[in-house]
C-alpha cells in the first residue's frame, strides 16, 4: 500500500520533472535574437502549419455553423423565438466552439505533423548533423515551428468563427427563412467584442501555445525509432487534446464564470 502511494508520488514527480524540462527546452529555443534568415524559415513553417490547415478549418467551420443553425432553429422555433438563432450561433462559436474545435483539428493536423517531422529529423540524424555544423537545432528547427503554431491558430480561429456564422446564416436565413435583419441584429446586440470575441482569441492563443509546445517537445525528445516516433505523435494529439479541453474549462470559468 505504501509502495503504491510511493509509486504514485514518484510518477507525479517524474511528470513534473518532464514539464520542467519541456519548459527549459522551450525557453532555450525561443529566447534568441532573430536573424534575417529566421523570417523566411518562419514563413515556410507558417505555410506548412497554417495555410495547409486552412481547408480542414474552412470545411469544418462551415458544417459546424450549419449544424448550429439547424439545431438552434429547431430548438428556438419551439418557443417562437427563432430570431434569436443568430445570437445563439455567434455566441456558441465565438466563445467556445471555434477555439476548441479549431484547436483540436489543429492538434491533429499540424501538431502531429510537427512531432513526426522533428522526430524523423532526429531519427535520420539531421538534428545531430546540425549540431555538428555548430547550429543549434532548437533555434533552427524548433523555434520557427513553435512560433508558426502560435501565430497560425488565432488567425484560423477568427476565420473559423466567421465562416461558421455564415454557415449558420446559410441554413437559418437562406433555407429556413429567418429574417436576415434579425439574424444579424440580435447577434450584434448580444455579442460583445471585448467580452466575447477577444476572450475567444485569448483562448486560441493559449491553445496554440499548448499545442505547439507539446508538439515540438514530443518530437524533440522522442525515441528515434519508428515506434518511438509513432508513440510521440500519438502523445502529441492525446496530450494536447486533453490540455485544450482542460484549459478550456478553466478559461471559461475565469472569463464567463462571473456571469450568472
Amino acid at each position, binding site marked *: 500500500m505504501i509502495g503504491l502511494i510511493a509509486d504514485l508520488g514518484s510518477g507525479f514527480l517524474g511528470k513534473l520533472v518532464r514539464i520542467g524540462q519541456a519548459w527549459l527546452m522551450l525557453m532555450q529555443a525561443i529566447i534568441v535574437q532573430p536573424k534575417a534568415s529566421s523570417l523566411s524559415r518562419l514563413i515556410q513553417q507558417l505555410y506548412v502549419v497554417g495555410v495547409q490547415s486552412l481547408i480542414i478549418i474552412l470545411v469544418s467551420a462551415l458544417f459546424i455553423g450549419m449544424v448550429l443553425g439547424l439545431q438552434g432553429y429547431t430548438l428556438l422555433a419551439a418557443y417562437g423565438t427563432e430570431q434569436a438563432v443568430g445570437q445563439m450561433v455567434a455566441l456558441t462559436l465565438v466563445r467556445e466552439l471555434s477555439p476548441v474545435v479549431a484547436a483540436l483539428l489543429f492538434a491533429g493536423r499540424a501538431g502531429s505533423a510537427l512531432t513526426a517531422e522533428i522526430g524523423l529529423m532526429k531519427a535520420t540524424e539531421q538534428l545531430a548533423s546540425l549540431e555538428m555544423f555548430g547550429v543549434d537545432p532548437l533555434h533552427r528547427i524548433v523555434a520557427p515551428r513553435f512560433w508558426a503554431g502560435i501565430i497560425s491558430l488565432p*488567425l*484560423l480561429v477568427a476565420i473559423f468563427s466567421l465562416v461558421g456564422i455564415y454557415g449558420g446564416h446559410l441554413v437559418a436565413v437562406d433555407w429556413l427563412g429567418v429574417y436576415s435583419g434579425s439574424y444579424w441584429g440580435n447577434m*450584434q446586440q448580444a455579442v460583445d467584442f471585448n467580452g466575447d470575441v477577444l476572450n475567444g482569441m485569448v483562448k486560441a492563443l493559449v491553445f496554440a501555445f499548448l499545442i505547439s509546445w507539446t508538439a515540438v517537445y514530443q518530437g524533440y525528445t522522442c525515441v528515434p525509432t519508428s515506434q518511438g516516433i509513432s508513440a510521440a505523435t500519438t502523445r502529441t494529439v492525446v496530450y494536447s487534446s486533453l490540455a485544450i479541453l482542460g484549459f478550456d474549462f478553466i478559461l471559461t470559468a475565469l472569463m464567463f464564470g462571473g456571469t450568472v
Partner: protein
Amino acid sequence: MNKKWLELSVGLMMVAGVAALVALALQVSGGNMSRNAQSYAISALFENAAGLGPKAKVTMAGVTVGEVVSVVIDPNALMAKVNMEIYGQVDYLSIDSSASILTAGLLGEKYVGLTVGAEEEVLVDGDVIEDTQSALVLEELIGQFLLNFGDNK
C-alpha cells in the same frame, strides 16, 4: 517561383485571418465594445431586487445606457443595493432620477429602467438613486389578486 507562391499564400492567410477578426468586430458584434473605461458607477436601493443579476441591462427610454455590476444587501437600510455602471457619455441623469426593475416580456429577463427627473444637478460617480420601484414578483401579485378576489366575494 515556388517561394513566391509560398510567401503569397502565407500573406493571404494572414490577411484573411485579420480580416475575419475585423468582420467579427463590425458585422458580428456590431462594434459593440464594453465601455468600461469611460463609465461611472451609481447605485440604487430597492425593496426587492428579485431576478436581477450582474450584466443585466440598464436602460433609459428603452436604450441601453449601462449595466448592473452587482446586487448586494445594504446592511444599514436592509434593502437590496444594485450597483450599476453607466456609460460615460450619458452624463445627463438628474439627481432626482428614478429607477425601477422591469421585465422584458412576460417571462423575459429583468432589467433596470431609469427615468430622468426635473433637477438641474446630475448624478455623478458614487451617487445613490433614492426613488425606486421594486421588482414585480409574480407570486406576490397572484397572492394579492387571490386575496382581493376573496374579499370581494
